[in-house]
């Protein structure tokens, strides 16, 4: 069974059906691309999976448990962590603090442990610092580790989004347009980071509009249109699919064949 199984998920906003019963499954390895024209419901689906917006109906099974309608923090703690399309750095916090915030199981987040500085909370903090620095080193964020997140460049903010997700020790990450608005050189670099994460055993589900990124990175591509699953397969296969072309380009009235 796939790691993430989505069955017949629906969600509407004031009568507009953003998701019309979408069903798809994401394997527990490699990079899966989620593409589709604007308004296909990709980001809404991400919001439903991550609990930011509860779905109206359907089942979302992650790692054997139905997580549909749970709170975002419960879903993150179950091992499914998402990033945001527009990088949402915690502006007046340092890069390190941004990373540390995503650390799980920190007893120091309770008032008593914080006041007393219990040994468990201090040693957990050490582990989290280790992890945060390792992630920062891996993502080339060491130079800015003490800077406020507001000082980062657009590309660095995208890297920080990925880094924060990694801090939570995820079993799978959902990336919403990790290279949108990033210059081509950095986009390639981010792509390499993702490939290497996937190679290290972290499954990734990725929304992206840059087709060259998708073709380069993704082992498997799922196409959504009008709130439904439309097609899936290897990138070349879905790119050749007439329905997919139609969804992106529109219908041709006088087809020459």
């Amino acid at each position, binding site marked *: 069974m796939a790691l993430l199984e989505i069955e017949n998920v629906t969600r509407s906003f004031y009568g507009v059906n953003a998701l019309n019963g979408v069903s798809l499954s994401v394997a527990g390895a490699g990079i899966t691309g989620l593409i589709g024209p604007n308004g296909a419901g990709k980001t809404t689906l991400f919001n439903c999976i991550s609990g*930011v917006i509860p779905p109206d109906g359907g089942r979302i099974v992650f790692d054997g448990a139905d997580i549909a309608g749970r709170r975002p923090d419960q879903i993150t703690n179950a091992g499914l962590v998402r990033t945001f399309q527009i990088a949402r750095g915690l502006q007046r916090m340092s890069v390190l603090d941004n990373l540390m915030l995503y650390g799980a199981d920190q007893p120091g987040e309770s008032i008593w442990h914080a006041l007393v500085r219990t040994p468990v909370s201090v040693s957990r903090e050490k582990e989290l610092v*280790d992890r945060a620095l390792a992630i920062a080193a891996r993502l080339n964020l060491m130079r800015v580790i003490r800077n406020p997140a507001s000082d980062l460049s657009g590309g660095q903010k995208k890297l920080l989004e990925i880094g924060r997700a990694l801090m939570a020790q995820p079993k799978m990450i959902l990336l919403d347009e990790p290279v949108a608005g990033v210059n081509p050189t950095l986009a390639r670099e981010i792509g390499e980071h993702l490939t290497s994460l996937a190679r290290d055993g972290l499954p990734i589900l990725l929304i992206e509009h840059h087709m060259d990124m998708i073709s380069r990175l993704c082992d498997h591509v799922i196409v959504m249109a009008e709130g439904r699953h439309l097609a899936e397969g290897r990138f070349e296969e879905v790119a050749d699919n007439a329905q997919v072309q139609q969804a992106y380009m529109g219908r041709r009235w006088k087809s020459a064949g």
Partner: protein
Amino acid sequence: MEHYLVAMGVTAGIYALMALGMNVIWGMAGLINLGLVGFFAVGAYTSGILTLKFGWPILAGIAAGTLVASLFGVFVALITVRLRGDYLAIVTLGFAETMRIIMSNELWIANGTDGLSGIPGPFRQALGPHAFNLQFLAIVIVAVAILFVLLQRLTRSPFGRVLRGIREDEQVVQVAGKNVVMFKVKAFAVGTAALGLSGALYGHFTSYIAPDLFAPLLTLYIKLSLLSGGLGNNVGAVVGAVLVVFFLESTRFVIPYVPELSAVQGAALREILIAVALLLILRIRARGLIPEKVGDFPLPEPTRASQPLKP
């Protein structure tokens, strides 16, 4: 004059306690609480009633005032959990006014607008007025110091980090795996406990409390303290509170020297000066005299050199 300075010192200390409490809710967690004076009143009345009518020892009264204000804080946090910004501000402002109006009209609780008089102070008779004030100044300074150390620990802890995260972007903190509602409630509980403590101390110091002491203007003075000192920063909260009391009191002496001004006009001019001071601070140093620093918190040294990461 010396008596006056000591009394002002106590006032400044009590303002500092309030500013420290407010800083947890507003400065750290970013939740606007305009009901500050309501929690201050809850602390003052609880301790006043218990010591005066039920003969509780003063320390027990102060502890009860702190605890009850904190319980009110939890209650208000729970009913406002889905509110932010202006809406939260209005509801909390409404809470404080509700408290004041209840205390004015429900005579059986604490004599309505006549207020409670004769609230006992520690060793008031034995010491005489001047020594009593000096002693109270020492008590307040110790209270500020203890609260400062405790809150400084909270600020620099993982708990403080989550609160700052909520201030910046609540949804990101949820996705980070934190139960945001619980943290907001805890921020209110801690902050309003400090407000209750300051109220209780105030009652035992002046020996008299009445509903009209708990008007919204006091809330604004504390907001002004935080804004001028540096929001989100415990040192700034204390410095700001002392500055505001100094400013409020020193203008008392300056105004009479302004020619052609009646006493009423002079009083109005003081309020105008306070408004001007706030505008100037926000214009020149929007983050306050001692701005909150980003990323200066001491973290434990990493135990190992950074190593390749396995997710």
